């Protein structure tokens, strides 16, 4: 795997990245900046989805896999059979924003319990008007918008809110493209949607952000509240997975280092949320130590834990 052998006299070397479309903008930004540093290294980035990315990764077709969720047991198994070891590196957060239309005047914040009532599978066909969620809200029909069921955002939201991956009502308007959701909810007075925070930031003129009360009072997602973990539980980490064999190549090593060092600055550029500065230090040392395997051992999820906690736990083990 890992690209053509660079034996040919000073031919450009290459690094292949593929995977999540959520992580894509960040990887693209890093690759772009890396060019000024090492113009002879051709970094390419694809977006065949986290699942598609891992498939290629587990066959040794890529050096680095972008992922918007931790690797699954099956995917790890596939890597193992192919003799591929990886280093798992969190690189940023994707904040999930709960939004309503600008025309909606009655929703000022929402609790996690209310979100659950609204989205849980049992709500399908029964929870139809807003007054069923909170009695002070009007008896107006509810229209829900959310990401497609095949997306990491859907998995994460359902797990964080309803407690189980994929536990969601089905009668909502789904689309894989968040811009499409923006269109939908913006013109729908009774609508509510959740999607990546960056899509709210670019459309704040049409949408109203709904602060979420996770137990410590309503908190609106922002770069700050997501990064420092106060906006819980709706922010999910994004990862890159690096093939340890590829790390033996100098350019890959250089690139990954460059990635971690610049992720903080660049993630703001592309609309995702950086980790805390100290967390990046931990990630860098994790990479330096070539710690293989995942932080998310059997059954553990990324929901409700700060990245620092997770990384610490791993170090401690």
């Amino acid at each position, binding site marked *: 795997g890992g690209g053509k052998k660079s034996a040919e006299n000073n031919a*450009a070397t*290459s690094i*292949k990245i*593929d995977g999540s*479309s959520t992580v*894509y*903008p960040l*990887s*693209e*930004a890093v*690759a*772009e900046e890396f*060019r000024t540093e090492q113009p002879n290294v*051709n*970094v*390419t*980035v*694809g*977006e*065949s989805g986290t699942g*598609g990315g891992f498939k*290629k990764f587990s*066959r040794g*077709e890529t050096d680095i896999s972008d992922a918007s969720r931790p690797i699954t047991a099956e995917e790890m198994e596939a890597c193992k059979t192919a003799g591929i070891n990886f280093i798992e590196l969190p690189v940023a957060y994707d904040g999930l924003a709960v939004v309503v239309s600008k025309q909606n005047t009655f929703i000022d914040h929402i609790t996690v319990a209310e979100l659950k009532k609204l989205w849980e599978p049992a709500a399908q066909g029964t929870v139809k008007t807003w007054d069923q969620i909170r009695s002070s809200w009007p008896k107006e029909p509810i229209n829900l918008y959310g990401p497609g069921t095949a997306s990491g955002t859907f998995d994460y939201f359902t797990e964080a809110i309803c407690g189980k991956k994929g536990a969601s009502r089905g009668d909502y308007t789904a689309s894989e*493209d*968040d*811009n499409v959701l923006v269109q939908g909810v913006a013109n729908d007075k009774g609508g509510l949607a959740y999607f*990546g925070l*960056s*899509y709210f*930031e*670019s*459309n704040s003129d049409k949408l109203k952000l709904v602060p979420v009360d996770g137990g410590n009072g309503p908190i609106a997602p922002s770069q700050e509240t997501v990064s420092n973990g106060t906006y819980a539980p709706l922010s999910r980490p994004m990862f890159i997975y690096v093939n340890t064999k590829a790390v033996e190549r100098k350019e890959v090593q250089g690139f990954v280092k460059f990635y971690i060092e610049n992720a903080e600055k*660049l993630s703001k*550029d*592309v*609309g995702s949320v950086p980790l805390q500065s100290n967390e990046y230090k931990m990630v860098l040392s994790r990479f330096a130590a070539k710690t293989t395997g995942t932080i998310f051992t059997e059954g553990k999820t990324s929901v409700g834990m700060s990245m620092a906690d997770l990384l610490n736990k791993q170090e401690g083990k």
Partner: protein
Amino acid sequence: MFKDSLFKYFAIFCTSIGLIVLALLLFDIFSKGLTRIDWDFITNLPSRRPERAGILTALFGMMWIVTLTILIACPIGIAAAVYLEEYSSKNRFAKFIEINISNLAGVPSIIYGILGLEVFVRLLKLGNSVLAGSLTLSLLVLPVIIVATREAIKSVPNSLREASIGLGATPWQTIQRIVLPACFGSILTGIILAISRAVGETAPLIVVGALVYVPFVPQTPMDQFTVLPIQIFNWTSRPQHGFVVNAAAGIIILLLFVFLLNSIAIILRNRHNKRVKY
């Protein structure tokens, strides 16, 4: 006579619907994207900053893909159509292929992507190369080319074949010198439609492993690549407004590219049709 003119106005109305939708689409796209197009947009590499991002690699990747796809699919498609029309005398095999082809035309493009990934990328070890992408698209457009070419061949009057055969031409000489030249115009129509389709395809190429961020122009058929529709698709799903403008600008370029292809083919077709009239 009244019905006649009624139909005429109805027909003009129908034609206008198509053209109006086209005009609306074009207006929408041009009003969004035209100002973004400048030399930099065409010659820049992809970038996270919408205003700095360009389509150089996507454009070249697309030209590679289209050229190779035409080179692969047209000969095969025309050859297959010739076999079905001129050689197989309606035997079972031909019937089987016929049904088979119309089935293939209905297979969603993403499934071709999966096929291409398994066969060209993995089995034949072509990697995520321009060649693997072109081969995949070739399979995708093959049914369109075959079906259209067959119709074209059918339209050639039998008397021409008889005359040629009667002069002692071999079947192949007859096909090559009489039949194909006589229906060249209609074949081109089919190819235009097929290639137009190939140019706009996104999903199968993503599956085959076309990338999005490619900071270099492919030099050989074995290089990695990206194409304009993938770049556009990526831009339309980005949150920042600047990328929406970029997407529109990209679409304009893509359309210009398609216009160029179409005009070449149409000029050829019209010139040809003028020459051949029964």
